[in-house]
């Protein structure tokens, strides 16, 4: 899973000149002094926010305070000592947490636009007399915000990526059930899009099931497959051949008119497949092969 997720480690600290580093230290001297005050003000300002409001109310006061204290210390180390990694790691974790809670990424910019003027105001109070210094602190603040949002953005992306992977996994598991209909007879209903990964998994499950249930006949129903290209057809052939090697005959049913047309048009030779029009016919044929006969019970006919 980790290999396909968005790479979130290796966030580099922002490239800073010595001037910028001094500016960040200035920034922290002002921000740090008013940190708790600004946090309080932010909370008040965001209380009516449709997304942040309920969120802030839902988290216990003690947890918020603890988090704020931790963030403050991490930020101090980042700004004053250039120790950015722990700060980024914390941001990543928080970002992922909020992403999972359903907080939108856009809302972070709203929060930013609330906090920024609060800090700016205090910076002006502190450095109003020195416009050059004020300006460089403001620039440094911009850099800090940019890298912060970059990290949070990554946290959101990887959280989403994780969700997608989990769902893909769930879909895969759901989508390839092998059903035992009766002794020696298996049904493999295929629904949706077949890619190579799924085809592989499907064939694998089918073979395991044949082995496990000692199946003589498998019916592969592809009614739910919307499109068949040469690759899918090839996978189907492989599944049937592999089943044959384990001594099970395969019957393919539910080839729709469109699918049949495409297969003929692209020139895939499916003549080695035993095909029956619909599932009903396929099952009848399969039962004939394993030696069952389906009919109304005598008593019901009376």
């Amino acid at each position, binding site marked *: 899973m980790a290999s396909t997720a968005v790479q979130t480690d290796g966030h580099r600290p922002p490239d800073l000149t010595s001037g910028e580093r001094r500016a960040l230290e200035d920034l922290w001297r002002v921000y740090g002094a008013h940190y708790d005050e600004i946090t309080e003000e932010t909370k008040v300002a965001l209380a009516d926010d449709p997304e942040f409001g309920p969120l802030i109310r839902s988290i216990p006061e003690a947890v918020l305070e603890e988090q704020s204290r931790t963030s403050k210390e991490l930020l101090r180390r980042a700004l004053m000592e250039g120790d950015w990694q722990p700060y980024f790691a914390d941001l990543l974790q928080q970002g992922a947490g909020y992403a999972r809670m359903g907080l939108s990424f856009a809302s972070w910019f709203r929060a930013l636009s609330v906090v920024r003027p609060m800090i700016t105001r205090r910076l002006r109070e502190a450095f109003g007399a020195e416009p050059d210094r004020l300006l460089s602190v403001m620039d440094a603040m911009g850099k800090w915000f940019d890298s912060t949002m970059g990290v949070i953005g990554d946290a959101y992306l990887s959280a989403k990526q994780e969700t997608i992977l989990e769902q893909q996994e769930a879909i895969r598991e759901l989508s390839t059930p092998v059903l035992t209909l009766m002794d020696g007879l298996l049904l493999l209903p295929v629904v949706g899009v077949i890619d190579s990964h799924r085809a592989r998994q499907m064939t694998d499950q089918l*073979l395991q099931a044949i082995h496990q249930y000692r199946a003589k006949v498998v019916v592969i129903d592809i009614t739910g497959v919307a499109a068949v290209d040469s690759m899918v057809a090839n996978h189907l052939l492989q599944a049937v051949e592999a089943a044959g090697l384990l001594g099970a005959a395969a019957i393919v049913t539910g080839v729709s008119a469109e699918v049949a047309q495409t297969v003929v048009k692209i020139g895939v030779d499916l003549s080695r497949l035993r095909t029956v029009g619909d599932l009903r016919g396929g099952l009848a044929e399969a039962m004939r092969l394993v030696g069952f006969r389906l009919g109304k019970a005598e008593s019901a006919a009376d």
Partner: protein
Amino acid sequence: MAIPILKLGDYLIASIQSALTDADLTRLQDDLARQVGDLRSRGVIVDVTAAEVMDSFTIRTLLDIAHVGKLRGADTVIVGLKPEVAFAMVQLGLRLDGVATGLDLEEGLAILGHVREPTDGG
């Protein structure tokens, strides 16, 4: 290492292990071809349950065994292919065309028993 060939009624049974050299396989083929005639066997079952890998030479030998057997009057069934092995085979495009395959020895015997009297729904 010679592969032992067991006689069971009208049938011959040979079991292939994974660590076989090409020479062993060729020898099995020769032995089977001879014994089918000597013992007037009607069927040959080659059990590959213990084989973790099936290379192209093994497959070709199995096919040859089946064809030679057929000429000598015996049907051949390959049994015991593992799911993984079967999957790998089709992916590599290795086929056992024209040779009956069964899940295990029991199935193999059942298949041979039915060769001359096909199932009729009972």
